[in-house]
């Protein structure tokens, strides 16, 4: 069954407005964003008014009902600006709403989705100090207590934690590992629940406008209705399904940002002169421009194909992993070339190339490192061969 998403003419009209908004508002606010360490309040208010938090939500919960292709197209546009803007919307949409839509009870959807669609900020708590790639090895415990649960543990590197209104926390409801990671459950935890504290924001290499921090859970009592889907053991499945979406989102972010970098690289190459002519005239510079253009195009095509498959209802585990891996690695290569094209200027804070280079490094790490994507792809190949 194909998901047609929202009407194409409405979508196109929205993308047109968004492209302008990105270029006329979000990009000019980047310096302020970096300085503040978060999305400026007026911009965040505009992003809410523009309806950016509800794009994939069904209309009944106050959203616009985009399908995956449309959502990814939206991310690609917003990611032309600083990655921090994507981070603030995509955790809501791609991770938390996706989990709620896929696994939440009707009551949970009715309570949370309209809030999230209008821009309450969400965080996704999977990683821990001792478990990242091997996330099922998490230590955070949820122990039954009457009708509800008591949560204890620490989540690490949690994007948006310092300003989140709610956190989707993955925790074990079983001390022993169970088949299919059924020891993991997911909990919808309000940020202000007693016992929840947020660590000091971590200093990072890039994306100064986005924040990550520890989420510390000390005897946090939640009601039974905080358990996602009202069912123990589905937390890992929910997280992995969100990650499929998240991987496409990171791939789209890589493509959007790579386009921005290449535009800057081309502009510099056309304007900068060496040996009496624009450096764009030199074939070695042209090779860097051409390789970047071709690789962006390839990643874009992979994304379009993976999204179309997902919208047709196909499982896209391998496609999502391959697209995320290729697009994020591609983005890193483009960033490196764009620094190179800038020569000495590429190494200086004064030029954007230096920031681009730092900002996009994380794309190869979160939502599954490149190595984890390789594992996913190869494991499936081997399993299919074995039959």
């Amino acid at each position, binding site marked *: 069954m194909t998901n047609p998403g*929202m*009407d194409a*003419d*409405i979508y196109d*009209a*929205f993308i*047109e*407005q968004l492209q*302008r*908004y990105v270029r006329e*508002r979000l990009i000019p606010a980047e310096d302020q964003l970096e300085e503040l360490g978060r999305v400026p309040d007026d911009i965040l208010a*505009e992003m809410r*008014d*523009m*309806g*950016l938090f*509800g*794009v994939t939500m069904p209309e009944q919960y106050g959203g*616009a009902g985009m399908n995956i292709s449309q959502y990814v197209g939206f991310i690609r546009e917003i990611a032309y600006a600083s990655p921090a803007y994507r981070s603030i919307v995509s955790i809501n949409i791609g991770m938390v709403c996706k989990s709620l839509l896929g696994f939440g009870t009707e009551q949970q959807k009715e309570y949370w989705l309209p809030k999230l669609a209008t821009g309450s900020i969400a965080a996704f708590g999977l990683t821990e100090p001792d478990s990242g790639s091997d996330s099922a090895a998490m230590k955070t415990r949820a122990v039954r207590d009457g009708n509800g649960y008591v949560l204890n543990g620490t989540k690490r590197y949690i994007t948006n934690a310092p300003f989140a209104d709610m956190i989707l926390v993955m925790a074990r409801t079983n001390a022993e590992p169970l088949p299919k990671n059924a020891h993991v459950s997911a909990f919808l935890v309000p940020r202000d629940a007693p016992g929840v504290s947020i660590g000091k924001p971590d200093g990072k290499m890039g994306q100064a406008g986005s924040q990550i921090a520890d989420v510390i859970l000390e005897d946090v009592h939640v009601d039974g209705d905080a358990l996602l889907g009202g069912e123990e053991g589905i937390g890992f499945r929910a997280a992995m399904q969100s990650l499929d979406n998240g991987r496409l989102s990171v791939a789209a972010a890589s493509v959007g940002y790579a386009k921005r970098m290449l535009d800057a690289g081309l502009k510099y190459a056309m304007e900068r002169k060496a040996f009496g002519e624009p450096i764009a005239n030199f074939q070695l510079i042209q090779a860097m421009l051409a390789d970047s253009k071709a690789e962006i195009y390839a990643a874009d095509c992979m994304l379009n194909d993976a999204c179309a498959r997902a919208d047709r209802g196909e499982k896209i585990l391998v496609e999502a992993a391959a697209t995320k891996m290729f697009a994020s690695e591609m983005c890193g290569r483009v960033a490196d070339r764009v620094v190179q094209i800038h020569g000495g200027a590429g190494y200086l804070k004064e030029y954007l190339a230096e920031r681009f280079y730092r900002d996009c490094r994380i794309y190869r790490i979160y939502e599954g490192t490149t190595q984890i994507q390789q594992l996913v792809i190869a494991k499936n190949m081997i399993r299919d061969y074995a039959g």
Partner: protein
Amino acid sequence: MKILVPVKRVLDYNVKPRVKADGTGVDLANVKMSMNPFDEIGVEEAIRLKEKGVATEIVAVSVGPAKAQETLRTALAMGADRAILVQTDDEVEPLALAKIFKAIADAEAPGLVILGKQAIDGDNNQTGQMLAALTGWAQGTFASAVNVEGDHVSVTREVDGGLETVKLKLPAIVTTDLRLNEPRYASLPNIMKAKSKPLDTKTPADYGVDTAPRVKTVKVSEPPVRSAGVKVADVDDLVAKLKAIGVHS
């Protein structure tokens, strides 16, 4: 009070125009089109007047091809209440446009008509003035501020050497300049809502207007490429150069 806001679909302001090989006009095939920026400012001003409680209804009008519907939908998504498309594939000149707007103004009886001072394609800067002449209404062109007070509107105009404020009796014609306001972006929820707002389709003939051109375009060509400048060593050199090309004796 009702406000009428004409909006034109033009080549997007970010697109570099290219002249057709046969010199008959600008190539519009497969290029991005959007609302004339001065008209966007007009729509925004009308919405602000409505938000202030001065206006009660905003009617957007476009004369152009079927695709101009998209431009009207943008106006509706920004906040106009309904739209009229006067559909024609002809190039409509300012006088014929003014006649169509006059006919619509007669039917709708708006308190204000807010037009862009010009469209960025033809740069004619005529339609508003012609409409004022045809209706006999007062006009405030190149507006950088618009304030409605009772049965008057005061319009601050950007003129050579500064600002001039005129007080006009309503109904009146206003044309917008760039500094009047910063138009809002249409939000996704409003774009969705705009789809169900009314949009009437008419033709110039419905208003009894003949759009046959009165101006013949002889040839359209790219502007000449600017030749590179020359560096002069000092004032004497400059004077000598100017003498050589005959601009200084």
